[in-house]
């Protein structure tokens, strides 16, 4: 646990001094939301659906480029090799990188939710709080998936090009569940309308956090 805390503290300190991941995530989310407002210009009755969809599109595509900086920066100067050779449990290393991605994305998403409310003329109210469960669960699943796959794509010739090709199809179940439950939350539907989708998100998170923890050592290991 000590190694987990030390790794996470290092990534958070780097982020506090440079702000690079969170700012990149926020800036990309902002641009994607602006593009989607122009593209969709939703009617008032479709607002909950459209804004939930826009929020998740922004999360997925901004996250694809920004969430895994804490992991990819380790590729510089071969730091990932040093980490792989150090006595740190690979599962702990994975957990720390996942936690860093999760924290950066959560901060950027909180800002993106405010933008969605402004851009789509929604109301500030208690319904926004009900966005929290799907967003937190979806972000956790996305961080777990992206951290594992970015460790792969970052070490191939194709690099960043490969990550969305691998990650987007795998994220589909969480994306469907996230958009549907977020739309229900924004439309003010009762919690029971969200519960089965939250169940899918929980299953997705459990699966990918477990798989990532088990398989990460094969991804960063040396021959």
């Amino acid at each position, binding site marked *: 646990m000590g190694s987990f805390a030390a790794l996470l503290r290092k990534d958070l300190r780097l982020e506090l001094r440079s702000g690079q991941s969170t700012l990149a995530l926020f800036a990309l989310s902002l641009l994607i939301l602006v593009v989607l407002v122009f593209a969709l210009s939703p009617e008032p009755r479709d607002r909950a659906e459209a804004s939930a969809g826009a929020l998740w599109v922004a999360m997925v595509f901004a996250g694809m480029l920004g969430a895994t900086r804490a992991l990819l920066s380790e590729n510089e100067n071969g730091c990932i090799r040093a980490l792989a050779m150090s006595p740190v449990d690979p599962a702990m290393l994975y957990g720390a990188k996942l936690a860093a991605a999760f924290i950066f994305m959560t901060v950027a998403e909180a800002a993106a939710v405010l933008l969605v409310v402004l851009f789509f003329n929604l109301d500030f109210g208690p319904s926004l709080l009900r966005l929290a469960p799907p967003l937190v669960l979806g972000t956790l699943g996305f961080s777990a998936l992206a951290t*594992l*796959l970015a460790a*792969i*794509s970052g*070490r*191939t*010739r*194709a690099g960043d*090009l*490969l990550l969305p*090709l*691998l990650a*987007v*199809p*795998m994220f*589909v*179940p*969480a994306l*469907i*569940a996230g958009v*549907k439950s977020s739309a229900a939350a924004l439309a003010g539907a009762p919690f029971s309308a969200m519960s*089965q*989708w939250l169940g*899918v998100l929980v*299953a*997705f998170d459990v*699966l*990918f956090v477990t*798989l990532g923890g088990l*398989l990460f050592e*094969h*991804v960063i*290991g040396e*021959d």
Partner: protein
Amino acid sequence: MAAEPSSSNIADSTGASAPAMARLAPWLGVATLALMLASLFMVFEYVPTEAQEGIVQRIFYFHVPCAWVAFAAFGLVAIAGVFYLWLGDQIWDDLGYAAAESGMVFCTLVLITGSLWAKPIWGAWWTWDSRITTTFILWLLYGGYLMLRAMADDTPEVARFGAVVGIVAALDVPVVIVSVRLWRTIHPAVLVTRQGGHGLEDPRMIATLLVATVAFTVMFAWLLMLRFAQLRLRSRMKELRRALALAEASAGDL
């Protein structure tokens, strides 16, 4: 001289299976041809026309076997991935890669035959029905796997990446199935799928489906074996080259 025993061992250990498979492959090819001709005869001559859907329904006898083969192939990718990560033997990576490529052919055929059937029956080439969507996501998942193999070098490291992606993708499929089904239950499709409503009451329909399933399975085994044997030869050549380079380097030292 010291390097000679090791290089001949390498040739034995990885090359032995390739000639055996090369001998088996033509027989599988002949079996595929015979079974395919039999199932074509059964589909066009033997089986009665389904009452409600008419002649178009006959594509079902190719569509369902392709779907079975596609799912089985992608299961094989994941199993080979587990064995590769566990044992580290190149043979498992070659098997997984060959299964992914062959499975992709059948997964594409499922989508194409499904579209051909859907146009006259549902009135649209494509609907976001739960099974179509699931198959399409499967196609995208393994497309990602093949892109990884195509865009990366041919190293043990990338073989491990392929194994990881194959395992993760296969375990993702149940979650995809559940979420897509829920998505379509909440938003009912305009065109409702008939759950098992293909009317296989006639025993001749069942017989045709069985023969076609065997035919497609044997065809898959044939294609898999051809590609697998080719990948085995490639791995063998790489190991021989490495052994040769080592032998030359040690000869140079002397």
